């Protein structure tokens, strides 16, 4: 077990105060050894314990066996610059615990925000629950034959939403919202949804796309532009969306070969207009054309997006 930072700090202050010689005896090793020298000292259990005449107050001596797999541990041989926080959490157990906790809390925060609105669902129906969910996240909703409803910068929205009980939700703009896999539970029951925009959503990934088949009957427009976690593996599951007419897959940093991916997606969804990579990056002649029939653009893209072997 790693020593505790708090305890080490306490002992440092104890050292600085005048002490009888007995306490100084077990400070034979420096209190904050560099990682390698610590390992050298501590991995010779025989010599360490032999030198120690009284048991040390901070139990720094038990790191030895963790480093047995020196050959395989990637950290053992890396010489990269470490930040202070990393150094502290490698050497002290309470810093490690604190940082692990902070990490867990960050992850829990996202899941908390994506809870299902079951009470509203039971009382007002699924469409309204879905609308409230999106508005709460800062998106906008459009009911059939009505105007777009948005929430303000404090994520508040008017209660008139609750009046649209029999009106289905037609379009949702969830750009930039922190929706994740579980949050989609609120959107998937909207059986008349025609337009969905998930642009720049940071937590929408391939798993989320694999759930969109439930909207296959009604969905006609889908935008996934700018989502950092989507890759071509998630785009492949969009083949269920047979009624899709417009798909925006531009600016996806997770897609390794955007040109090739766009061609494959177009082949997969023949009735759909796929808006993807900006063809002007390759040559000057593509821009004014309708991206749905890029007759001139395709050969250029094929040259560039050449199969590069098994990915």
């Amino acid at each position, binding site marked *: *077990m790693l020593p505790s930072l708090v305890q080490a700090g306490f002992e440092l202050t104890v050292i600085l105060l005048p002490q009888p010689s007995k306490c100084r005896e077990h400070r034979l090793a420096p209190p904050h050894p560099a990682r390698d020298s610590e390992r050298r000292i501590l*991995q*010779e*259990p*025989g010599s360490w*314990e*032999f030198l120690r005449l009284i*048991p040390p107050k901070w*139990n720094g001596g*038990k790191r*030895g*066996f*963790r480093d*047995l*797999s020196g*050959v*395989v*541990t990637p950290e053992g041989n890396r010489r990269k610059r470490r930040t202070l926080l*990393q150094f502290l*959490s490698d050497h002290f157990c309470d810093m*490690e615990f604190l*940082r*692990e906790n902070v*990490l*867990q809390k960050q*992850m829990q925060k996202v899941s908390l925000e994506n809870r299902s609105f079951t009470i509203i669902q039971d009382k007002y129906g699924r469409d309204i629950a879905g609308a409230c969910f999106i508005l709460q996240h800062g998106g906008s909703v459009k009911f059939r034959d009505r105007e777009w409803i948005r929430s303000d910068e404090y994520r508040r929205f008017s209660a008139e939403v609750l009046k649209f009980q029999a009106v289905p939700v037609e379009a949702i703009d969830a750009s930039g919202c922190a929706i994740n*896999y579980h949050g989609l539970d609120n959107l998937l029951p909207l059986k008349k949804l025609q337009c969905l925009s998930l642009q720049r959503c940071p937590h929408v990934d*391939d*798993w989320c*796309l*694999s*759930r969109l*088949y439930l909207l296959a009957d009604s969905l006609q427009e889908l935008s996934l532009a700018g989502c950092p976690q989507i*890759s*071509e*593996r*998630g*785009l*492949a*599951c969009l*083949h*269920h969306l047979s009624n899709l007419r417009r798909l925006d897959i531009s600016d996806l940093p997770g897609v390794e*070969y955007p040109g*090739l*991916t766009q061609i*494959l*997606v177009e*082949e*997969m969804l023949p009735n759909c207009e796929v808006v993807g990579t900006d063809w002007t990056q390759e040559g000057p002649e593509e821009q004014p054309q309708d991206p749905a029939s890029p007759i001139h653009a395709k050969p250029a893209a094929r040259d560039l997006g050449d*199969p*590069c*072997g*098994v*990915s």
Partner: protein
Amino acid sequence: MVLLDWDGKVSEFKKKIQSIMPGEPSNLMCDTKHLPPEHSDVVIVGGGVVGLSVAFWLKKLEKRQGAIRVLVVERDHTYSKASTGLSVGGIRQQFSLPQNVQLSLFSVDFLRNINEYLAVVDGPPLDLQFNPLGYLLLASEKGAAVLETNVKMQRQEGAKISLMSPEQLQKKFPWINTEGVALASYGLENEGWFDPWSLLQGLRRKVQSMGVLFCEGEVTRFITSSNSMRNSDGEEVNLKRIHEVHVKMDNSLEYQPVECAIVVNAAGAWSGQLAELAGIGKGPPGTLEGTKLPVEPRKRFVYLWHCPQGPGLETPLVTDTSGVYFRREGLSNNYVGGRSPTEEEEPDPADLEVDHDFFQNKVWPHLAQRVPAFEALKVHSAWAGYYDYNTFDQNGVVGPHPLVVNMYFASGFSGHGLQHAPGVGRAVAEVLLGGCFQTIDMTPFLFSRFYLEEKVLEQNII
């Protein structure tokens, strides 16, 4: 915090003083860095995905942090023959046994939330490269009824599987030749394939950060003690307990006896050999003592080919009526696939050499029949791996042995060990720590079924 083991320290100190005395062999300067520790609560034999999953769940479910010392013994740290790295990496819920479906559902949940389970401070997030494209199982007239019953059961457990008629199949996947297909089942969600190597590395990293010890060595011996008791029928039963595990280091005769409380057999294809070392199966045939662990290595080939006019991006992992399977690999019209041989065609598992004639004669004809575009294909490479094949009923063995009371099994999955590893790891940790299975009831998978001759047959083996 570790309590001060004062008595232990005093005795070690006395040993050291004794060794300095003239006439005694000096073992002051012994270098034991490379050896495993002398004591460990749990020794897991086998560091593949199942063994690491057991280690992970043991550390996760322990009541107090640092309560259990776990040692993972793996004899090959390059994993050159381990089934994990050589696997095709598929995960499906389309099984015929409810427990297998539940295991898969839990495992898919684990994989989806892998960055919450295996998060390490300062470590980069894991990318499993999961392709959520589903499995497509084709059935002929003979197998259609069984397929339908299975799908009904899978749906009851919560899997999202759809049944398709040949017409629907032709419409959805025009590149299939539906001749001979009576019914097809298609996984809509939570099925697909992923990169098993990144799962293994992620588990390894997390498990090391949780304090599990690793050792590169081979288990060569168990030191056991036995105790004779009478059961309720008055018969004498010999219960055995493993006290020490001898771990031999690589390329040397040096070994370390590790004193342990529990041994977990997660040795994959070699679990049968390990069980024999512990004396399982040494007895008159027909008795519980004489029942061996029926897990043996079976070699399976996987071929990678290129077909320029092949099926597109939406191709699921297709399993044909003949047993041939294939899936897309990457974006360049490459495909990976193979077939399980029949009992007569079983290749010799002594090495991992690939038999290319098997592809020519047994795989390609069926592939070309099912997908006409595959008539023109070119094999680029191939590899072979082992299934830890359970010759009794092709399902895993999980849980303690009735006679060798502190050996727990987690092997014999016959080709679906990777996809069940998270669920199995949790089940073994539960039964080890708590005495019984808590979340998924794996009692049909216990060892005793081999003696009682109760088969839990898994029909959907690919």
